[in-house]
């Protein structure tokens, strides 16, 4: 399970524009456009402001958290505790409001909670150097547990009308939620940071290897620390939104959301091993899941069955490229064998000099145990 870094776009002799239009993220955007068109044609009532409104209100939490998650996964780490931070923030908001705090003060306190929660993750992962997968499973339980400590079995529901109404208000007759303006700002912010700054390029380097990142000149530990703080803050803001949108503060709000977010990010073409992925791809993937779910629901497909769609999309998205690679490999081998008249020994253990074989290998993951396994089969 070492890094799977194909870096196809960089190695193929294609113009930057072509690379931009043909990468995984762009493919996701095309699929999204096709899905929206198909849904609009085939499903009554789909193409309406009402749809836009509900669809967007539903995807906002996932879309927001997917942004810092994209950066974290690109840098080769993961954060499973985000949904628990949402729950902790929601519980905090409820308890403080019930205690007589003003809404702005309570909301500010939630953001502070997010900063602290993210800093705890960041400290353990970046400073102490513990594996993020294990640490955030721990803080997933810890933060959700603290949410229970804060609010217990209670639910706080009597939030001021103007706040809960604002959470679901729309821009005129477009059906687009007002909150979406803030969401777009967050998406643009993270997109710019990842794609247009040296910090963002450093994250890709970090995803490839720590050493590479150090040579690029990025302070590895500090970068990771701040990514987790960012994830904490965004999750806390989602906690506030979640509470107001459903006007209910409970300790179990957003349980299990972390896997939905990660599914969206991976579907968007981000490699789980880091070093690859784009913000537009992730945005398209999250919207695609939202569109399919909403469209099928309008088509009277039961809600609970719809998770099959998420799962199948995720599997297909990682399986598809592999099938393509395999076909490409077979065709390439056949070409090579046809080109070599005396194709006696199979290309096992390509020697250092064999340029074409090596460039072929470098396109495939280094952890690929295929050559050994194939040889073993041939020898029998």
């Amino acid at each position: 399970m070492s890094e799977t870094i194909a870096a196809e776009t960089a190695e193929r002799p294609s113009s930057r524009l072509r690379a931009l239009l043909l990468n995984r993220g762009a493919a996701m955007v095309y699929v999204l456009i096709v899905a929206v068109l198909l849904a609009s044609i085939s499903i009554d009532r789909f193409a309406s402001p009402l749809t836009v409104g509900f669809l967007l209100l539903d995807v906002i939490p996932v879309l927001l958290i997917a942004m810092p998650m994209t950066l974290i996964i690109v840098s080769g780490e993961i954060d499973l505790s985000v949904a628990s931070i949402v729950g902790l923030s929601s519980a905090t908001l409820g308890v403080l409001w019930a205690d007589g705090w003003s809404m702005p003060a309570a909301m500010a306190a939630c953001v502070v909670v997010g900063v602290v929660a993210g800093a705890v993750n960041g400290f353990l992962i970046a400073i102490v150097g513990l594996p993020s997968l294990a640490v955030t499973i721990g803080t997933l339980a810890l933060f959700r547990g603290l949410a229970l400590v804060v609010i217990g079995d209670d639910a706080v529901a009597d939030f001021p009308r103007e706040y809960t109404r604002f959470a679901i208000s729309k821009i005129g007759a477009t059906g687009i939620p007002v909150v979406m303006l803030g969401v777009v700002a967050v998406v643009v912010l993270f997109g710019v940071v990842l794609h247009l700054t040296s910090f963002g390029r450093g994250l890709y380097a970090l995803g490839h290897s720590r050493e590479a990142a150090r040579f690029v000149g990025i302070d590895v530990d500090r970068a990771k620390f701040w990514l987790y703080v960012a994830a904490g803050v965004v999750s806390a803001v989602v906690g506030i939104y979640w509470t107001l949108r459903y006007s209910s503060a409970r300790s179990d709000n957003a349980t299990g959301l972390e896997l939905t977010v990660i599914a969206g990010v991976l579907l968007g073409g981000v490699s789980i091993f880091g070093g690859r992925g784009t913000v537009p791809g992730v945005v398209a993937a999250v919207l695609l899941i939202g569109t399919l779910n909403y469209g099928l629901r309008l088509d009277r497909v039961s809600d609970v069955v719809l998770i099959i769609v998420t799962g199948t999309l995720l599997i297909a998205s990682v399986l598809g490229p592999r099938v393509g690679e395999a076909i490409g490999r077979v065709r390439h081998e056949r070409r090579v064998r046809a080109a070599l008249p005396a194709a006696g020994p199979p290309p096992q253990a390509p020697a250092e000099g064999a340029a074409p074989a090596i460039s072929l290998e470098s396109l495939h993951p280094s952890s690929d145990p295929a050559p050994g396994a194939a040889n073993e089969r041939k020898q029998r």
Partner: protein
Amino acid sequence: MSTATSPGATPPATVAPAARRESPLSRLLAVRELPVVVALVALVAVTTAVNPLFLSGQGVKDLLLNATIVMMLAVGQAMIIITRNVDLSIGSMLGLCAFGTGTMFAGDSGVPIAVVFVAMVALGGLLGAVNGMLVTVARVPALVITLGTLYVFRGINNLWAGGTQYFADDRPRAFGALSVDTVLGIPIITLVAVAVVAAVAVVMSRLRAGRDLYAIGSDPDAAAVFGIPVLRRVMAAFIANGMLVGLAGVLYASRFNSVGATTGTELELTVVAAVVVGGVAIFGGSGTVVGAAVGAFLLTTITSSLTALRIDKFWQQAVVGALIIAAIAIERIASLRAARKLREQSEREVLDV
């Protein structure tokens, strides 16, 4: 406890006995499972001191029943994690097998219990094989694939079950009795689980196939070069894990009052947590299934302990979270120490020569 089952630890007798200047005590301290065992013993001791009823006959029975299912799942998951993979779909797999059990009994109340066990273990093995195929043949990261099958399996369960739930009345009394009756104060399903843990522990520590899993987890490329059939072994680990989940699903249906569409949701991270607490390294290659089982026992016992100690029940999950983080930190310190010791030892050997 099985000692020295981590991959690097070859039996001391065979490796230059003179070079080993370790006392039995330091060897005991090097056992990876030691912290979790100590924590478990301390937890039980403190709780019993405060509330003597904690270790009464009924108290012990409850503790064992609570731990049984997570224990089985942790053992299967440990096998997978040792190969540097992970299976997040176990909650959904357990749901399907538990609901399958309910369906079989509801369809024909006369169906022999043994048949149900075999059928559900086979179903679990099949689901595990799906994961294994996707991971080995398509060579896609296990975390991503099993996240996908988590949703797919759960969706199938929802489709199959709809709103249907099967309750305790729908199954034969003898089946429910498995998790009520005891032998020497130990529930029968717990005995089943312990037997399975022991069997898997022997495979993992003594048999070639089990040792290969450690080699694969330590370094997949090196394992392949060494001639270990990596794909076949990983596939076998996924199938074995699936069969354990299937067994756990049947036991779940015996232990709990109802099975339905949501049975087993969100179990996956609890189980991974139990494995990590039990001293299995999250990146594979070291740890034991016995450790994972003890980790599961510790996690489920904490809940009972806090209740017995009259600590606010809302604190339970936070304590579990803190414990997981502590376990990872201890693991880290232990592995750093082990690495230093290895380095010093090799330096000494160089000097000796």
